[in-house]
């Protein structure tokens, strides 16, 4: 055999080794299969390793040729194996991740949210509406003097309107406030116009039946400044009513009587159940009363040292429980103070 033949023989063997390798590599599906192929083609007993190990027995002039060819083949095999290994590793990693299977529908580890009382929520909602219109929040004592609760609000001892307020007394002159209106006087005593306040708070009346609780919640509003008029009152109340009940509701002002406002009004919104046609909820009128309002009676300014010719203003007051009932369709006033969590946690 001459050298050329010998080289051709070995080259053929190397080429077929490569073809075999490529075919077998294509069929490899796992890293363990790859490992055995790696051993077969690059291990101690592999054709290429043996060829290279025995290269010394070849004639000197053939050595570099065979050596280069073998090394190139081996490098290609190693590179292909590495490539394949990376692919297989990715697949296997993915497979391993896929085995980390959890039931996404199982409930999460509990963080229970408590609920704000519906009265607090609605108060805060109303506060935000009025803050947006430039109001501040004022507060005052729940135990009041006769002076602030009645007298300074144009309701002297013998006034017929007093019979509407059945009052809890602490002494002759001290009582539980029957409305949030005393804060009007207290605030005006301490501040000068412009006054734009609302006053949320508890009030008390000596009345306890299906439609009355001895304590309930009111929000009072007071605006006093130069040039405040009945049109401003209408705008403010309408803006509030649309915000809280929705733009689709109609709002109407009916004349009424309160001792400390003049002219006075009761304000209704159209019934959402019948759309104003009249139903049981609105006792057939199509309207639901939401609040009382009016222009501040000029007499009040005399109690706090304002000049009634100089300034004018309006006031309004509403029962929060009533607003809640209308807004959420609650039909029993007593629910508000029974503190049944089946009620509280609904809101």
């Amino acid at each position: 055999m001459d050298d050329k033949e010998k080289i051709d023989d070995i080259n053929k063997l190397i080429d077929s080794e490569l073809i075999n390798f490529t075919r077998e590599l294509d069929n490899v599906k796992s890293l363990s299969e790859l490992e055995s192929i790696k051993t077969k083609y690059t291990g101690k007993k592999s054709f290429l390793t043996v060829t290279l190990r025995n290269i010394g027995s070849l004639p000197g002039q053939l050595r570099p040729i065979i050596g280069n060819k073998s090394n190139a083949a081996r490098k290609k095999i190693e590179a292909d194996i590495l490539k394949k290994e990376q692919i297989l590793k990715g697949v296997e990693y993915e497979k391993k991740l896929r085995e980390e299977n959890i039931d996404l529908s199982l409930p999460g580890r509990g963080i229970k949210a408590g609920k704000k009382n519906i009265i607090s929520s609605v108060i805060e909602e109303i506060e935000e509406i009025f803050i947006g219109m430039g109001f501040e929040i004022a507060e005052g004592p729940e135990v009041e003097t006769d002076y602030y609760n009645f007298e300074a609000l144009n309701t002297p001892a013998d006034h017929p309107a007093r019979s509407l307020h059945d009052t809890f007394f602490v002494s002759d002159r001290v009582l539980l406030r029957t409305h949030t209106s005393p804060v009007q006087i207290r605030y005006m005593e301490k501040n000068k116009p412009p006054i734009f306040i609302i006053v949320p708070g508890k009030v008390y009346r000596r009345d306890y039946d299906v439609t009355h609780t001895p304590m309930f919640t009111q929000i009072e509003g007071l605006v006093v400044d130069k040039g405040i008029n009945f049109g401003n009152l209408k705008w403010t109340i309408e803006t509030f009513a649309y915000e809280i009940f929705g733009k689709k509701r109609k709002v109407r002002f009916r004349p009424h009587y309160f001792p400390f406002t003049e002219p006075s009004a009761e304000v209704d919104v159209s019934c959402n159940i019948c759309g104003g046609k009249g139903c049981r909820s609105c006792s057939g009128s199509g309207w639901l009363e939401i609040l009382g309002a009016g222009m501040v009676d000029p007499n009040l300014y005399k109690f706090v040292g304002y000049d009634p010719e100089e300034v004018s203003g309006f006031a309004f007051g509403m029962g929060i429980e009533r607003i809640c009932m209308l807004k959420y369709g609650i039909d029993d006033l007593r629910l508000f103070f029974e503190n049944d969590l089946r009620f509280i946690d609904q809101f």
Partner: protein
Amino acid sequence: MKVTLNWIKEFLDNYNQNTISPGDIANMLTMSGTEVKKIENTGSKYENIIIGKIVDFTKHPSADKLSLCKVDTGTRIASIVCGAKNFKKGDIVVTALPGAVVNGMTIKENKIRGQISEGMMCSEMELGLSSDSEGIMILDNSFRVGESFSKLAGLDDVVFELEVTPNRPDCLGVIGIAREISALTGIEFKIPEYDLDKRLNIDSNFIIEIEDYNLCPRYTAKIFENITNIQTPLWMRNRLLMCDIRSISLIVDLTNYIMLETGQPLHAFDKDLLHSNKIVVRRAKEGEKIKLIDDSMRILDNDILVIADEKKAVAIAGIMGGKDTEINPDTKNILLEAANFNGPSIMRTSKKIGLRSEASNRFEKKIDPLLTLYAVGRFEDVLNKITGYGIKGCIYDNYKKTERKRNIVLRTDRVVQILGKDIDKNTISRIFTGLKIENRIRDKEIDTIVPSWRYEDLEREIDLIEEIARIYGYDKFDSIPTTVTGRRGKYTGYQKVVREIRQSLCDTGLSEVINYSFYSNDTIKKFKLDLEKEYSDNVEIINPINENFRYLRTTLLPSLLKNVRENINHNIKDIGIFEISKIFKKRSDEDNDILPLEINKIGIILTGKRVQKSWNEEERDTDFYDLKGILEFIYDKYYSNSILKIEESDYKFFHPRINGSIRINGKKMGIIGKIHPLLVMEAEINQDVYYMELNLDDFVNNIRKGKKYKPITSFPAIDIDLAIVVDEEIKNDDIVNEIKKCGSSLLKNVRLFDIYRGPQIEKNKKSMAYSLNFREDSRTLKDIEVEIIVKRILENLGKKFNAKIRE
């Protein structure tokens, strides 16, 4: 108050129901301040009920108790089976024809025991006119056969239920309402006029003595002799009925009728039962007794005004008449009273004796004294029309005249200032004229004179402006935005924090409750609040609804415990709730303030499972540290570089050992503990309950303002873990304080991470493991520095607490 449309129409000229419907009237009244609560068409209840005449009847062939009647219904003769016995041939009866609804049942033609019945003859009860079910209703011959019953009986009417505001006593009668409608519609108002002046006090056979004209400005009376005692006409009975007044006798019905019509309460005495020809209006004697018409016995005092004869009180003025002199079936002669009493005085008496009547309701709103005479004239007129009594005799009138005309000047500028709309002078004048307010336009002013019946309520210019707005129509005023220049709406700092805390507490899983501010003396005793200085000094309500509303709360605890019990009753056992409310405490006399102390408090109560058993969690009962954790949660949010300390305390409502006061930076701000097991048991609760109460005012007002940024250091920290064994009694706080004391400024944080009790250490001892975090902000710490500090800490802990390092 109820009024009927037909009644109102008597005082309106040419009212045409076709141009202005009852619904329009209701709407106009509502939109002018007299709210119509309800409209009821009474006529519709009596459809197909007509006047019939029994032309013949025979016994029912197969039922002894029934009769077969032939009834003329105007168009034909109907056969009707009837069970009543009280009729005879020729009687006029009320006949319900098929289609009529009687007692909620629709009448149909049917067979009764084999005999055809084409309708039903009705009793008063069946017609809803009275409780009389004895026999069918027999009418007199004036009722025309075949006509609609409701029309002839005055039932074809519309009833308005009104809410008259307390400033409008003039509207407490049909005439007043008619006057309003006239002002609103322009329909002419007319009332019968009586010329009574020339019959005033023309003899002195009867004397009226008034002790105090302030209490009784006017007393008008008339004697009617030999009254014909006939039944009240059906139309009048029905009209009273529609206004919710029961018919009693002609005279009593007439007094009620005239009151409903004019607004002037009337009272009739049996003149022969009075002991004198003299009436005295005087204050009652202390302890004087009177039996009233409602059969109640009243003991009077000096503040109560009575009507008396020479012997005794015969009525409580303005409220109710006496039993002894009331109209009875034998009454022949009556004394009619139409008086005017002082409103506030009537109101006080009515409150004091707990009795309100149609009369007192009107008097307390200050009715027009000019009304008395008119009411007497009207009574006489109606009586005469019914019985032919005649228009005659003296009217006794004791009246201390006062001015009842008032001049008010209205400035048109002021109208614009208040109402925001420039209303034309002539429009204003027309409104006034409609309201019978005399007026004269002068340049920029209108001079007015208000009528007597509006004297009390129209006093000032502003009152006239209200009248303009009311009649002009509130809906005709534009909405005008208020300007916002120079002001900004906002919460105060305090308000903001309170609202944040409320939200934070909800975020920890608590729900918010709101309780009444009251509790009972029993509760005070049960919780031993009277023995705690902090929780005594309850404010007492002198007129509570019942004993549960006797005192104002000094703590929210009892209410919250009650909430727990009630929710457990509803099978909700794992509860975390809070309340933010005021508590009230009487002030000491030196405070010189008649109002009590009001403090905002947060009460938090926890009970039941804090962690529910779940697929991935073990259940756990609430303990003290859950509650303390909530405290720390809100504390951390607002207090940095501060000291929170729970100090052992001895509140009687708490467990003797799980019983603490909350101090922040040394200031006492609340209490925290486990509710005493006996109290919990007494409330029928079978689980531990933990309670905390925080003084919200103190908590918020002591938050330090002005936080400042500290640069973040990049030098590494050294963490050292330290486990020591100490006696069981040694408190964590004391150990931590000692560690901090020795730790120098390099010790930044101490965290307890384990407590161990068990076989590896001695009995009655515990191992406490702390993680200490050291850092120097300006350089890298050396290990040796920290080792020295830790050594010092251990030495000191050893000396102070006999602590040994755990190997």
